[in-house]
């Protein structure tokens, strides 16, 4: 692998890693709230979180480019904060990826939290566990498979995301040229050997990730089936 390819792969890994960590931090409380609330705002917020899943990435990229631009509200905010502008920067890609990959992290977490019976949490409450204690010592361990799925899908989807990063990235080596954009450039320029190396690598990566996820989930089920059978 030559130096330029290595830069691209490393940058993509950094982007996906940072995005996944941020999404777990933001997505966990959000998913917990969505799983437990009876608020009338829930359907609206749930729909907003799901939207990146159904919208074409070009829609997302187009609006982000406008919002984060010098005349957009987000762009004016970041300039006022002294952060400069987000398009064409690594930070901008992180913000865009957090939005684009949000449903891939929030939905598995929400499903995992919803699967925890209310009685289990109530039992913990009768043992004088406070809300935070209940969350960290009861809910999080029970939702572990959800966290695994959320992390893997969040990471993998960020690696595979193309439309949004293409539209706001500007293809700058070492800053915004990620795998999917580099691959697109090779294909368009008819550099098929280089394209095969990246594309084949991504296919292998996706396959390995999904098989590993499926094995992890199976192990989890086996774990639960044995001691939890009496429950």
């Amino acid at each position, binding site marked *: 692998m030559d130096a330029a390819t290595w830069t691209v792969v490393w940058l993509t890994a950094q982007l996906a890693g940072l995005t996944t960590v941020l999404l777990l931090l933001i997505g966990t409380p959000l998913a917990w709230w969505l799983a437990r609330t009876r608020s009338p705002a829930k359907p609206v917020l749930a729909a907003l979180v799901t939207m990146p899943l159904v919208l074409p990435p070009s829609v997302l990229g187009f609006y982000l480019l406008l919002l984060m*631009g010098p005349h957009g509200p987000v762009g004016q905010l970041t300039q006022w904060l002294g952060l400069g502008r987000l398009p064409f920067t690594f930070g901008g890609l992180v913000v865009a990826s957090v939005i684009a990959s949000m449903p891939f992290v929030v939905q598995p977490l929400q499903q995992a939290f919803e699967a925890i019976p209310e009685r289990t949490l109530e039992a913990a409450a009768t043992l004088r566990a406070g809300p935070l204690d209940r969350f960290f010592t009861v809910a999080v361990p029970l939702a572990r498979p959800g966290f695994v799925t959320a992390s893997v899908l969040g990471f993998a989807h960020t690696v595979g995301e193309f439309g949004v990063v293409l539209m706001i990235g500007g293809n700058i080596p070492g800053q915004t040229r990620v795998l999917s954009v580099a691959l697109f450039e090779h294909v*368009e*320029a*008819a550099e098929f050997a280089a394209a095969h190396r990246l594309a084949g690598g991504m296919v292998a990566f996706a396959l390995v990730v999904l098989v590993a996820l499926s094995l992890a989930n199976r192990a989890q089920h086996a774990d639960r089936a044995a001691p939890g059978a009496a429950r």
Partner: protein
Amino acid sequence: MLAGTLATFCLLVAASAQAGTVTVAVAANFAGPMARIAEGFAAATGHTVKTSAGPTGKFYSQIIQGAPFDLLIAADDATPKKLIADGHAVAGSNFTYAIGVLVLWSAQPAVVDDQGAVLASGRFNKLAVANPKLAPYGAAAMQVIQARSLTDAITPKLVTGESIAQTYQFVFTGNAELGFVALSQVVVPGKPVTGSHWRVPSNLYGEIRQDAVLLKNGAKNPAATALLDYLKSPAAKAVIQSHGYGG
């Protein structure tokens, strides 16, 4: 009675054979003028034109995989030549229908001066160009930067669009203060150009010839050859020039 019906039927068949359909792959930068040319062509001949706009490189990949296009109206002259060499287009049918004009453009007024001195001043955040590997306008932009000996100074400020259309988006939204785009993108026929621009002298970059070619798929389609001829007509030329192309 029967003879009459038969005659009408024959007439209908003859008419439908004359009024054909031509399927055209057109370079994204030429989609606007092509729509107007197609209207004029349809009115003059009764043929129907179906156009797909997109990047020329993508059309090349699709055509060699058997895409059902009759004509390619390309953004360069290399792709039609390559298609002829590959045996996917009719030899000798390629010709230059338009010459691309490069401009340095800003969406803001008074940013770009009429000599392009702003390039050397460094008083801009980003300069957008189309990917020089993929787009002829991008390659031309890099030649201008080299001709002005500004490669080292400008490289850190460079952002690349995957196509000239994306480059235009970057500048239009103000995310890049400057960009090298096609004059045809900033020209609206009959109106002054918005923002500020410098029409790059044509001696600073290699000519951007945009060629059209008859594809093997359309070789026996009279509507396809008719459209190719219509592209050379004064009516089509007038539309092409009003949209900011030389030629």
